[in-house]
């Protein structure tokens, strides 16, 4: 890595904090969360549910403001939705009253531009959806819907792709297939990807680095490098290295939870976990 690239990372999250003001009081979701993502790096963020993963991703996308701290893209702070950032949402989030073509066209309609037809066709072929343009979302399986959503996000050729538990609702076989697809797409056109997931296996398969967030309020508790070369096969996933890494991450997440429980109720926790 060159020195200049080290100075300005693709994405820089600095001391990001977010407090939700709810009726029942303030709810801190993120607490001084900091990390960098290099250009074309794939980083997964895992953590116990409710640790602020989605909040973090929404802040990185500019959809949310932060209570304190900043997110910078190419060194410039993000203050709102940015054309260089694509988002793949939880579930596919397609518009059910539009067919696939119209769904993929949606971002261009908003921006008042025309899609690069050959690029879109290339993407559709890549994800195996050519010929499905006139189909409505309800006519497609969950996996196909999510593939369409990926095409929609990539159609604008973003340099950063933020993925918010995109495959959480899919069965494990479809999920494996989608993971392989994400890798293929990445190999096809390298992109900076931040991937939020509940699945440690998915995180390891896809990422260069896995960040573990602490329980709410979330901050980066630990990071793990995933050293395997690409393309990665599912055979790699069965090796001892992956097994050890998976366990280490799992222990880190569970450990954080236990520590939080102890801090919240020291007496009871000591009784239960001497």
């Amino acid at each position, binding site marked *: 890595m060159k020195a200049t690239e080290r100075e300005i990372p693709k994405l820089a999250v600095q001391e990001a904090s977010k407090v*939700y003001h*709810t009726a029942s009081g303030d*709810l801190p*979701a993120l607490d001084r969360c900091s990390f960098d993502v290099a250009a074309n790096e794939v980083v997964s963020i895992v953590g116990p549910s409710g640790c602020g993963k*989605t*909040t973090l991703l*929404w802040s990185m*996308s*500019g*959809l*949310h*403001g932060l209570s304190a701290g900043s997110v910078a893209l190419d060194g410039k702070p993000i203050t*709102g*939705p940015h*054309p260089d*950032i694509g*988002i793949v*949402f*939880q*579930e596919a*989030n397609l*518009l*059910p*009253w539009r067919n696939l073509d119209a769904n993929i066209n*949606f*971002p261009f*309609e*908003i*921006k008042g531009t025309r899609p690069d037809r050959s690029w879109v066709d290339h993407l559709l072929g890549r994800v195996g959806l050519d010929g499905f343009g006139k189909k*409505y*979302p*309800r006519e497609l399986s969950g996996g196909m819907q999510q593939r369409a959503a990926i095409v929609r996000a990539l159609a*604008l050729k973003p340099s950063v792709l933020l993925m918010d538990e995109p495959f959480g609702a899919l069965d494990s076989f479809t999920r494996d297939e989608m993971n392989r697809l994400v890798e293929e797409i990445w190999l096809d056109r390298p992109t900076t990807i931040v991937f939020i997931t509940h699945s440690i296996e998915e995180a390891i398969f896809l990422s260069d680095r896995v960040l573990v967030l602490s329980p709410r309020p979330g901050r980066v508790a630990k990071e793990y490098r995933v050293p395997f070369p690409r393309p990665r096969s599912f055979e790699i996933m069965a090796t001892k290295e992956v097994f050890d890494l998976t366990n280490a991450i799992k222990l880190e997440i569970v450990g954080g939870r236990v520590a939080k429980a102890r801090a919240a109720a020291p007496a009871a926790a000591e009784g239960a976990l001497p």
Partner: protein
Amino acid sequence: MSQGDAIPEFGKGKAGEGGEVSLTNLSAFSGGPGIKSGAEILAIVAVAAVIIGGGEFLLRWFQVPEYILPPPSKIAWALFDEFPFIAPHLGYTLVELLSGFAIGSVVGLLMAAVITQFPFAEKIVAPYILLLVTTPMLALVPLLILRFGFGYTPRIIAVALAAGPMVMINAATGFRRVDSAKIALARSYGASTLQIFWKIRAPMALPMILVGLMIGAIFGLLTAVGAEMVGGGFGLGNRLTSYSSMIQMPQFFAVVLLLSVLGILIYVIFFLIGKKWASWEA
């Protein structure tokens, strides 16, 4: 923007997929794979024949007087025989219904779109909306006639007053069905508030808007006929009072039949529109 700061939650059942809109729930329209089989058609025709024929037979067998309930054949004949005379009245009623409904639904839709954009304003006007929805606008007709005379004006106003609130309350329900993920999607591409309204909120509200229009049209028909019965020398409602006062019951029921057909027509029209434009929800 306040909605941007809501805690994003997707697990809790999305607002857009409640499955509450029941425009297409009548199995006579939506059941089965479209085309009915021969046996089904036969059964439908047979049941209709038994009901109509049986009615005819029973009314004649028990010699029920015509001024209580005329047999179906006499009603059908009266409709045919009297139609040239009834037709203009049908036209008057349609003019009142269509113009009142058009005014009422445009105002209702606009108000629904505006109040749902400003939750604070909605809280203030909510009691008045409830008042408008629950008050039978027919009650105002004598007053309207006093002010505007016996012409079209009081009737069109009454129809608009009856249809508008129904359209508004249903459309407002539709506009409130906010799916934060879809709005976030639009915002992530830099959509303006207006774009979010036209490309996300309006299509999401469309099924409920159609339900509102249908209910509004049926309330409008009700009010038009009611208003015609109160005063003025024309319209299907006027025919009802006139025929009943002269104990011309076959003619009276012929008009009732026409009104039923109008009501069913309203239902079918909105059902077909819903099927064409809002079928993604079914």
